[in-house]
């Protein structure tokens, strides 16, 4: 069942009407067992609970004077995170989901740049919240997802929900969002090195999640393994999942994907290609075991579908998984399109392609570049008019990706126009951003960062005069040390794992910029 929804509030409201008492979210909890040892158990919340809890949080935000304001959510995927998100956008405020892996300093900069006035955080990010209180003057409230936070002045999320629930009837009416209202600002790395806040409306997100009937049955069990601040996860796991009555199971850690598959017994999982490759290796290594038995052991008998997006997937994996009775549906998108632009689905798929454009998207090819128009295209980058003008032309989003459409309407990617590096796990890395950081070191005269065989590599032309002056004998070792220092403060996907030292300076173009290729 699939009907078009034009606001996120409407999406949840209709889902609750249809699936009220069914499980919406399942997650793991640790509790003391009979013998005093901590045991793992699965808890669930229904569609009705999610709608009520998020509605109450929306009411609480109204009581705090936060309606229409920008509210950040920071932490790993959890029932609280999802409740906060729906509470924020359902009550006419703007949610700003942030990457929990970023260093505190960068997060504070984003909070400030996005004009965030309230921050909902989980306990792993308490340090960031503490810092944000001191550094972000616009931030009025910090709201902790767990009880007893020692962040000064922090409110407790579930207490706010409960109190608002008790007096809900007496409070003022919440203004319900309209399709054209801004719902979410999502940060994405750009080629300029500075991340950009993509402005997405209710219609952008809700229609992206509901425009295409992927043939999911109500009660389909999904396991959500990707970071929830990514548009792909938020839209395709959470919004789409709820709109079709799915049960969303929360994978608590990338360490435990295999274990959690056994625990939750999902029917399908949304993945990035890196995960598909790792699982493929597992299947290949045990090729002596008959396919149905191996499949049941790794994924469970019920498992049938993987959706892959975020980066390029070698089509050979699609065939490999097919032998195990698992369908891989490859899709394509970007945050700027909320995010899905095209996808293969059961009723229409073609190996090697990224599927047909979504029903709510028009695609045209302009000088090989893919341009997209439709109800999912963003409003622009928050407070970045120049970058917005570069990305949008007459309502067309210039993706920066190169490709073509075949005679049956399937889209194929051929390359990237921009320098942006898309790592195998779908993270976007702007080489310029890392280059800028490394070239702050005196020993580094010139540097280029690129993707070499799947890992980030830095090629550096050292400042040999400086090295001589400082009596640095082993220049490569000194450069490696600088890279190690950089890596320590960088998220995993931005780390440099290869170093090439140049003896001559880089070739330059007429504007004295280093020639990248």
């Amino acid at each position, binding site marked *: 069942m699939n009907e078009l929804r034009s606001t996120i509030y409407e999406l949840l409201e209709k889902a609750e009407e249809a699936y009220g008492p069914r499980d919406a979210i399942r997650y793991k909890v640790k509790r003391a067992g009979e013998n005093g040892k901590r045991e793992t158990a699965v808890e669930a919340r229904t569609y009705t609970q999610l709608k009520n809890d998020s509605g109450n949080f929306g009411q609480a935000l109204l009581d705090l004077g936060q309606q229409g304001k920008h509210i950040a959510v920071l932490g790993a995927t959890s029932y609280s995170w999802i409740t906060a998100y729906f509470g924020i956008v359902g009550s006419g405020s703007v949610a700003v989901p942030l990457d929990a892996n970023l260093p505190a300093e960068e997060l504070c900069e984003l909070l400030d740049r996005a004009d965030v006035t309230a921050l909902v955080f989980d306990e*792993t990010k308490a340090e960031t919240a503490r810092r944000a209180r001191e550094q972000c003057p616009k931030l009025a409230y910090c709201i902790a997802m767990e009880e007893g936070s020692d962040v000064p002045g922090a409110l407790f999320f579930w207490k706010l929900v409960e109190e608002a629930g008790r007096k809900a009837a007496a409070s003022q009416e919440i203004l319900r969002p309209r399709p054209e209202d801004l719902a979410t600002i999502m940060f994405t790395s750009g080629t300029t090195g500075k991340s950009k806040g993509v402005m997405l409306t209710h219609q952008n997100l809700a229609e992206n999640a509901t425009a295409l009937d992927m043939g999911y049955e109500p009660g389909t069990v999904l396991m959500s393994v990707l970071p929830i601040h990514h548009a792909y996860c938020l839209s395709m796991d959470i919004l789409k999942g709820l709109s079709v009555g799915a049960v969303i199971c929360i994978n608590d*850690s*990338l*360490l*435990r*994907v*295999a*274990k959690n598959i056994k625990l939750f017994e999902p029917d399908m999982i949304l993945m990035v290609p*890196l*995960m598909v*490759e*790792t699982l493929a*290796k597992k299947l290949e*290594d045990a090729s002596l075991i008959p396919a149905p038995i191996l499949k049941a052991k790794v994924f469970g008998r019920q498992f049938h579908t993987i959706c892959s997006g975020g980066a390029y997937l070698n089509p050979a994996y699609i065939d490999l998984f097919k032998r195990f009775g698992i369908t891989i549906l490859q899709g394509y998108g970007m945050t700027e399109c909320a995010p899905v632009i095209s996808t293969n689905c059961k009723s229409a798929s073609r190996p090697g392609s990224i599927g047909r454009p979504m029903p709510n998207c028009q695609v045209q090819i302009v000088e090989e570049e893919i341009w997209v128009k439709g109800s999912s295209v963003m409003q622009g980058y928050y407070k970045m008019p120049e970058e917005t003008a570069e990305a949008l032309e007459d309502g067309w989003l210039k993706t920066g990706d190169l490709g073509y459409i075949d005679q049956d309407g399937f889209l194929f990617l051929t390359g990237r126009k921009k320098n942006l590096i898309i790592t*195998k*796990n779908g993270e976007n890395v702007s080489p310029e951003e890392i280059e800028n950081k490394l070239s702050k070191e005196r020993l580094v005269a010139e540097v280029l960062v690129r993707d070499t065989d*799947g*890992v980030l590599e830095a090629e550096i032309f050292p400042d040999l005069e400086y090295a001589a002056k400082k009596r640095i004998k082993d220049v490569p070792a000194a450069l490696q040390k600088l890279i190690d220092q950089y890596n*320590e403060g960088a*998220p*995993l*996907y931005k780390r440099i*794992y*290869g170093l090439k030292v140049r003896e001559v300076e880089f070739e330059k173009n007429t504007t004295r910029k280093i020639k990248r290729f």
Partner: protein
Amino acid sequence: MFEELVEIIVNYVEVRKEDIKPESRFMEDLGFTSFDFMSMLGEVEDTLDVEIDQEKAANIRTVQEAADYLAELSR
């Protein structure tokens, strides 16, 4: 702890046991991807009955560092 880890590592990447040194780096020297590495630690959690912190895990580079961290956890 080092020997136990080596036994597990060879199930994930194609290296000979004798080529795994304490100073071997998981990604650069042994050919792990970040997801392989996380999956392996998940298996270690079961084998050793410990709970690994994902953020701490992300800062582990060498086999020795992993062995030290695990030894500390299982104490």
